[in-house]
């Protein structure tokens, strides 16, 4: 429990630093209000999804082990062989080969900042990559399909169902980020289209519901595969 509280405290300070940095950049005009709002909403959506992921995993752990003592320890909750491999790479990047070492170093640095919680550092890095990737996708979709598609829930459609894969510390998060980067640059070639979306609230509701359901299903399947 002490570790959980300490992790929350440390994460809270990191969030405050990020938020202050954004607020300062907005103040000096280095970032537009709209961009800051979009990043903020994306980060909030992805963070919410990450919390749901962790909660689901912790509840599964509670059912299978009968306690929540190790709820803060990601290495215990996600105990499959693939995670053990990732965990050891995050703890000691120098022991793995290139280019995996290159991918593991940022997660290692973050894990050091979270007092040697390397899986958590990897998860935080995955979160950051997910937010950046989602923003890149939204920006391009915004241009191709129009603002309402991007704002009303496409973000949820992209973020929530994929979170079991992209938010967990691992190579999938890097792959997803690189894919979104590729989409961003290739998407410049796609001309803008005029498509009439459904009524705003109905679209938002449908997308949100679909995203939450698919997230729950994919989460269950993923943890079954990991475990």
């Amino acid at each position, binding site marked *: 429990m002490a570790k959980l509280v300490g992790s929350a405290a*440390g994460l809270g*300070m990191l969030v*405050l630093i990020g938020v202050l940095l954004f607020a300062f950049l907005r*103040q000096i005009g280095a970032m537009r209000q709209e961009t800051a709002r979009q990043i903020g909403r994306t980060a909030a959506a992805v963070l919410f999804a990450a919390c749901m992921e962790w909660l689901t995993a912790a509840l599964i752990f509670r059912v299978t082990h009968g306690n929540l003592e190790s709820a803060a320890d990601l290495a215990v909750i996600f105990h499959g062989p693939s995670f053990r491999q990732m965990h050891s790479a995050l703890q000691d990047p120098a022991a793995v080969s290139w280019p995996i070492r290159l991918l593991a170093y940022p997660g290692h640095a973050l894990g050091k900042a*979270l007092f040697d919680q390397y899986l958590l550092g990897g998860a935080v890095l995955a979160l950051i990559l997910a937010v950046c990737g989602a923003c890149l996708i939204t920006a391009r979709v915004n241009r191709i399909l129009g603002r309402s598609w991007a704002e009303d829930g496409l973000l949820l459609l992209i973020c929530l169902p994929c979170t079991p894969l992209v938010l967990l510390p691992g190579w999938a998060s890097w792959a997803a980020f690189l894919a979104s980067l590729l989409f961003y640059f290739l998407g410049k070639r796609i001309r803008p289209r005029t498509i009439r979306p459904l009524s705003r609230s109905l679209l938002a509701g449908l997308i949100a519901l679909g995203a939450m359901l698919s997230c729950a299903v994919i989460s269950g399947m993923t943890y079954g595969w990991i475990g």
Partner: protein
Amino acid sequence: MSTLKRKARTWGLIAAAVLGIHALMLLLAHLVIQGAFHPGELWTMAVSRLTEPGDATRYLDIARNGYTATGENAINLVFYPLYPLLIRALSVMTGSLPLSGVLISQISYAAASILLFETILLDGDRRCAWDGVLLMALYPFSMFAMGVFSEGLFLLLSIGCLYALRRQRYIAVGILGFLAALTRTQGVLLLFPAVCDIVSRRLGAEKRKLRGKDALILLIPAGFGVYLFINYRLHGNCLQFLQFEAGAPWYQSTRWIGENIATQFQMALDYSGLDWIIYWPQIILYAAALGVLLWGVRRKERISELVYGGVYLGFTYLSGWMISGGRYLMCCVPMYLILCKVKPGMARGLLFLGSGLLFFAYSLFYLIGYAIM
């Protein structure tokens, strides 16, 4: 009534209110302990709890003998020089070091409250300004501003610096920051809001040109530089104070916040006698301060002050083996600047009620003699 007379009356009211709250607390504690009013016992309690516990004896020793390079009091170097210097100076008139220490604390605290009022008044109304002053007076650990501790003086200098920053008086920012950096380690952190303010005015909507006077903010780190020079003169090592802090009786170290909070949480579970005195308040106040600062960002409060709050909070909680977190957070001024904006209603009522009850409880236990540090 002229503006000056009106201001003087308001300032007098503020000073009377904040000092009156502390004096009332002293009296209430005495009545609770003794069951009746005994002036002699009240005086004894005041002397013992305001001039003898914890750091008070160290400040008085520095004021009396200065820093020493050898002997068991060499470790007094960890305490910054301005406050004991002022105690020594005032004692020439009062003839008593403890009395001078208490007077400097009380006068500084009253002046800090007045400055806080004026600072809030630059952006808000009188209701906000009074709320800020009362929240500072009712902060659970504000009783430390009564005795021989540097909190009162540091509050005066740091609030003065932020006030000068709001008014763009960079000479005052430099001088007050310099003095604050000579009072507490956290004083040097005032450089952050100063730089933030200048950069945002230069690059933001104002596009203000840099002026020569802006460089005066460098007096803030210069104050810290003077302290490092004192370290060097006495021990040949600029960072000697860190070595003393790492040893007895403080055993201080620098560790990430999460690790420190986790340690404090475990200590709270393991030591039932000290949990509600030391550890739970530190953990809860950290979470509360974090929440207040995030709320301040949402409300689009001044970014320079929010940055100062964040840096102050982070720096304070980087200390491993911390037992005075509640006292240190008393000087996180942005908390009062943000909380005073809570609108009248249930939230404001609960805020004052909670703060008042905690102030009463912790002041009482401190004056009784519990190990609140």
